[in-house]
């Protein structure tokens, strides 16, 4: 079956532009997560959805970052007025449920470069 997919795979933005990153989770997965992976580092938690509800957004770096999952499936991470420090790989993951021992399945990521 299909895994987690993300689009675009690569995005180059000029500083100040808005970007939108899309995530299609595995069908039937209730929980969806966004992570930010800077070069040479492990992924850092950004936000968590259970169905359409955003239960934790404590990892979002600033109010320029916004995530939504309006119908409980596809999710979009939006970054407004991009800055150079936003350059990173943005990973999306999904799981059957957020809690317990369920592993998270990751997409290939979107590599964002802000010039």
């Amino acid at each position, binding site marked *: 079956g299909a895994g*987690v997919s993300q689009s675009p795979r690569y995005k180059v933005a000029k500083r100040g532009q808005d970007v939108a990153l899309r995530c299609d989770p595995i069908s039937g997965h209730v*929980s969806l*997560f966004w*992570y930010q992976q800077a070069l*040479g*580092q*492990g*992924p*850092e*938690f950004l936000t*968590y959805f259970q169905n359409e509800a955003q*239960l*934790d957004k404590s990892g979002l770096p600033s109010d320029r970052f916004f995530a939504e999952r309006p119908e409980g499936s596809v999710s979009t991470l939006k970054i407004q007025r991009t800055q150079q420090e936003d350059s990173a790989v943005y*990973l999306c*993951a999904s799981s059957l449920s*957020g*809690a*317990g*021992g369920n*592993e*998270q*399945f*990751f*997409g*290939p*990521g979107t590599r964002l470069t802000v010039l």
Partner: protein
Amino acid sequence: AQSVAQPEDQVNVAEGNPLTVKCTYSVSGNPYLFWYVQYPNRGLQFLLKYITGDNLVKGSYGFEAEFNKSQTSFHLKKPSALVSDSALYFCAVRDMWGDDYKLSFGAGTTVTVRA
């Protein structure tokens, strides 16, 4: 608070030799522990997890890991490494008693297996 430490940035082994990638963790409660592997330009791929029960867990591609509560460690092992095992490996933890959906990753260990 929860955290993971991977003390080695790089591990180099010859093909056919044993491979060990070290991981130690810190959580307030009991841990859920995971190992992921990342190949270039691809997302994280789940290898194995420890939830409860036997301290030795077996996963994909011949990998195994041993949970040691007294040493707060979860080292990844493979008895005989292959060149194709060369990749970036991440250890991750979730706190069963805290925000148990939130994965915290180590900085990663680059494994190089030489022919």
